[in-house]
């Protein structure tokens, strides 16, 4: 074995720990410091290969009608087609809260963050999963892990589900709380 092997071994282990620490730390920071929004959602119940049971959350803002797309004529001209949204495009959605309402809803979206930042109080970042008249957008907050074998039971109870998510300045989202009939649900 070469003399530097031990050092490299230790470095690789530290790097692996750093990856985990970064994943956890980034998310903890976001949960602590992010801007909260409450989103209306509808759950379904598949099963994750690696993570036990979880409920999949679809939000009101998961389907975005193309009429909400903000795009100036120059961009459309350059890209050669109207509404040039394709699968895997990153989009930024401006959220609005109507007077007296509890849930935030999508008011406009664009591939260019400058189109919505500053114009809306909250901006969430998503990735287009399916382009079309109603774009299907994923925000990375579609899974909520629950105790094993409880996913289906919880889903049956979920007639009125909402989520409190937090947003980073660049629109990244994380789930902070899950509500059923406006009551926070905790699984431990």
């Amino acid at each position, binding site marked *: *074995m070469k003399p530097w092997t031990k050092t490299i071994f230790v470095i690789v282990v530290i790097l692996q720990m750093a990856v*985990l620490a970064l994943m956890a730390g980034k998310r903890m920071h976001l949960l602590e410091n992010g801007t909260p929004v409450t989103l209306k959602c509808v759950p379904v119940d598949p099963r994750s290969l690696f993570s036990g049971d*979880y409920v999949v959350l679809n939000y009101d803002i998961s389907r975005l009608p193309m009429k909400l797309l903000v795009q100036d004529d120059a961009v459309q001209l350059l890209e050669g087609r109207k509404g040039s949204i394709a699968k*895997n495009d990153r989009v930024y959605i401006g959220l609005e809260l109507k007077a007296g309402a509890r849930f935030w809803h999508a008011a406009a979206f664009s591939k260019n963050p400058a189109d919505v930042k500053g114009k809306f109080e909250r901006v969430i970042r998503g*990735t287009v999963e399916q382009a079309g008249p109603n774009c299907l957008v*994923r925000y990375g*907050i579609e899974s909520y*892990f629950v105790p094993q074998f409880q996913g289906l039971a919880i889903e049956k109870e979920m007639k009125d589900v909402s989520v409190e998510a937090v947003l980073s300045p660049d629109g990244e989202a*994380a789930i902070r709380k899950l509500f059923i009939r406006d009551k926070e649900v905790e699984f431990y």
Partner: protein
Amino acid sequence: MDKADEKAYGNSMMGKGALQKIVNRETARWVEAGIIDSAQREKILSIYADEEAGKKKLTMSLPAIIIGLAAVLLCAGIILFYAANWRKMPPSIKLAQVFLLILAAYGGAYYCLFLRPANRFFLGRIFLLVGMVSYGAGIMLVAQIFHISSHPTNGILAWALGSLAISAVTREKWGYYLSFALFAVWNTWEHSVYNNPNYIFILVPAVLAVLFYREKAVTGTALSLLGVLYWFYQVNVHWISLAGYDVDGYCGALLALAHVPLGVVLIMAGNILREHPVVRIPARMALVIGWVFTAVPFLFLSWPIKFKEFWFPFLPGTAFHSIQLIALILCGTAAVAVMKRRGHEAVLPGASVAFAAVMMLLPLGNVTALMVATHLGLLAFTGAMLYRAYRDPGVFIQERALAVIFFLLFLAMKGFGFFALGLSEGRFFAAYSLGFVIFTVVFFLISLTAETLVGKNGNTFPSGLLNGACALAGFFIIYALSFKMRPQTSIFEASTSVLVVLFMFLAIALGLYGLLLKISRDRLPVILSAVIFFMSVTVLLISGPSLSWMVYSAIFNILLFAMTGTLIYYSTRINSKTLLNLAVAGFVLHVMTRYFDLFWDLLSGSLLFIITGIVGIAGGCLLEKNRRKLSRIIEEGREVNP
């Protein structure tokens, strides 16, 4: 004694300890008998003593087994404890434990591998693998704790990279396999869910091939080869999907052609490395896959496909596949040059690359050009494969098997193809079916030619299998033709491409007949096949709406009898009981079919069966008597002329 022999020996005979006792006893007797002297006996015994000592070195100690079992129990207990209590723990405690688990596993690995490697190396490897798995589990658990679901493939990638890095540092072979599996999951997920062509995946098999090679991991190097090929298809499929419906056919055709030079590159690698101690298995795999690749255009392009455009390369949307084909042709040419320089047979690989290059330049949108080029290539390739595989007695066994498989595959594929085309275009049923009879005769002649040329060097050739397959194919297609059929259209009303290919086959058949009559010592099979060939051609040329189905039926029934008669006669000439039995079975099938055709409507059900039973018993006895007589002749012929 290599591993396979050792295993077989151990399984079939006795353990090494028992063998040593026998050797000990027998050598003492040999010394007494004066066969060997004492010094020689000592030398013989020392060989077996060394093997026993080596075996003992590999034996695992009892404490190690106990430690292993204890570790399993400990792990099971920990898992059960966490399963029961995990949900009750706050995230910070969960995280701390994940980190602790990883650190403990890697710490154990460090201690055993670096500080006490002499007697704890095996345990260290186990700790290392536990560490890798813990790291992956840690990624998944962090995602679960914080409900992270955006782009889950990133987690798999991070796990794969971590496992690869730690495995590379410690040269842990099983870690390489783990990371390879993880990279494969990551890649497949990226490609199938996110439509990511994942060009960089090529780095995975490339890097792992080197690492596996360093550890002399034969299976790993073979997996790396498969990884590269998987990537090739993944990228190509992605570009075909980008091309869109209008041009994906052209891209597919260019991809089919690209298989040929790529196959030649694989053949080159396989030939050069086939005796290499580490990569001999992937090399042999490359050789087999390479030959299969060279046959791809014949499998996929030798059909009357109608394209809108004449020339394919660099049509809008085909740039990737065009450039790829050109690049691979250049690589294939270089591979041929390398093979030639190293003294490997390079004529057929060279011709294959040339074929791909010519095909690229041909107007393949013209059906006639496509059909003529691919069928000429198919016939030349089949004949050349057979000839080169059986010419040299030392040729790789898999190449011989492939030559036979290609022959049978092309015959079956074209048989089904012609038959299906005939059924779909019922008015050309006779034409397509007879076309296949002519194709079969040409294949038979190719087999005979290869056999004659190979036989000149005194080498054996699987003529029984190949000729039997041709006879079987011919029999069944003529049998299908012997039934009532709807009015047929003259072959001269068929498309130009069909006529051109038909006359090309006739010309090739005549050429091969001329050649075989000149070079073959046994002209009988040539002449017998010529009878069937010329009868088929005649019927094909005269077929048309003016002929009643009864005329066709009469002709094909005569042809069928002529064929079975020919085969029975020929079986006695070559002393083949198998061929005789097959021919008799065909004859019985034919007679039975015609019998029921004729009498089904004429006689009542019971009467038909009674008469059939009587005729069947009488006919069967007569037939069996004659079959036995012929079998005896064949056996006697074998005894006289073994």
